[in-house]
């Protein structure tokens, strides 16, 4: 069940909302709109022909003008893997959570929230996962500037050799 069959299958359910299959480098993926995320993953997970039951990871990428979320799904029954992408504008980075469909999504979404600042609505426990709770800013963004010190601890190391 490779990506193009999945794409045609989904094309029937979500006409306008699913973009064309794009292959860049060694991965082929397609974009989908933010609103249909819940139904899309419900179909992907439970439809007999697809059964993508294992959500491998959610990668958040900062494409400078907008943010992107990459979902990677495995179907153990058919032994296939597909990647889906969705665009999120930097203004209000909101998207619905899929942690009620995939339990593993909860922590991946928390990481995306913590490091990239994408807020997942109806997430059961949206907290920072890597950074301390009172940390401002989202480190993985391209425009993230690190402050000089955190609670008085200097974040820049003293330069012995003047190089780094």
């Amino acid at each position, binding site marked *: 069940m490779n990506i193009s069959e999945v794409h045609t299958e989904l094309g029937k359910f979500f006409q306008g909302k699913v973009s064309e299959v794009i292959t*860049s480098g*060694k991965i082929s993926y397609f974009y989908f709109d933010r609103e249909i995320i819940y139904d899309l993953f419900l179909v992907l997970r439970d439809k007999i022909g697809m059964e993508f039951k294992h959500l491998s*990871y959610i990668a958040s990428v900062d494409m400078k003008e907008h943010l992107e979320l990459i979902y990677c799904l495995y179907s*153990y029954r058919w032994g296939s*893997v597909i990647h889906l992408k969705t665009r999120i504008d930097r203004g209000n980075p909101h998207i619905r959570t899929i942690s009620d469909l995939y339990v593993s999504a909860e922590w991946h979404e928390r990481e995306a929230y913590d490091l990239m600042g994408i807020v997942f609505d109806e997430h059961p426990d949206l907290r920072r996962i*890597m950074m301390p709770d009172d940390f401002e800013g989202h480190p993985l963004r391209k425009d993230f500037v690190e402050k000089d010190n955190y609670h008085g601890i200097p974040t820049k190391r003293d330069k012995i050799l003047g190089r780094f």
Partner: protein
Amino acid sequence: MTLEERLNAVKKENEILLNMGPQHPSTHGVIRFIVRADGEIMVEALPVVGYLHRGIEKLAEMTPYPGFIPYTDRVDYLAAMFCNHAFVMGVERLLGVEVPKRAEYLRMIASELNRIASHLISLGSMAMDIGAFTPFLHGIRERELINDITEMLCGSRLTYNYMRIGGVSNDINDNILKKINDFLDRFLPGFIEEFNRLITYNEILVKRCINIATISSEEAINFGLVGPNLRASGVKWDLRKNMPYSIYPEFKFDIPVGEGFKGSVGDSYDRFVVRVKEMEESAKIIRQAISNIPDGEIMAKVPKRVKPPVGEVYSAVESARGELGYHIISDGSENPYRCKIRTGSFSAMKAIHIKSQGCFIADLVVLIASMDIVAPEIDR
């Protein structure tokens, strides 16, 4: 919302709030569990992670491709060979470089040796958490022999930095082959049988591990478990067989799957036994590989300054802790634009959080050890 709010929201009055803090003998590495216990029975063990977050993914965006390889060792320092292999394979796919056969063999031998070493530590520390200290040291003693071999092969005992984009850094010689043979003769029939007699069939360990945190196969897939944890729940999925990479199709080895050896399918005891069986399989693979290493050079022609074309790749490797994958997005420059690292222990933490409800505090220790989580893999 912050941690305090989360805890106050669910606080009941007759519960004890125990802090199995970052420094605790049985949380493997720096992980903290806030245990809400009612007497000995746990209501919830809330994991708090992030103490070992070095921001390797952010560092990837600042270092050139060849320079990033030593960082990949630090993602999972107990099984560093797999991290190298996954990253290097990803970049080679982007560049379209064909790795010489001999290099593939050397990579595969080093990785399987590293899998045995990692399993020895995880089995030993599980036995130690349950109280038996001797199997841990027997495991460490065998691991020392592997450390010597890798030290002779690539110069370092833990963070190997052995693989390069397009091949491997050092070649193997007869001395190392002889040492590997000695290790295998010692390991396969002798050590594993003795380890089983000493601890695997030990009734106290069996009683402590059966029916603890039993994870069914649907649950395991939904939790996103990978590697031995997934196979112990009865799902026959191993990247080396189902999505073959490198030269694994040329070798005959089978995938141990949990069948409820003493308790039910997918309990902690199954995970323990599946890891022991996996060590045997790895030893068989190495034995097949040593006998027919092709000769040839060990490094493909790769430009000094690696600049892969624009594009993305996701390369995954069956590490000791399951699927370890690098999602590399390159924009044609010298540094990767984004490098997402997918590790096995990250999703295993969620399984621990859910499965810890309702079992004893002593079982939380068994559950953590049986999931074989390692702090650097979670926090990256």
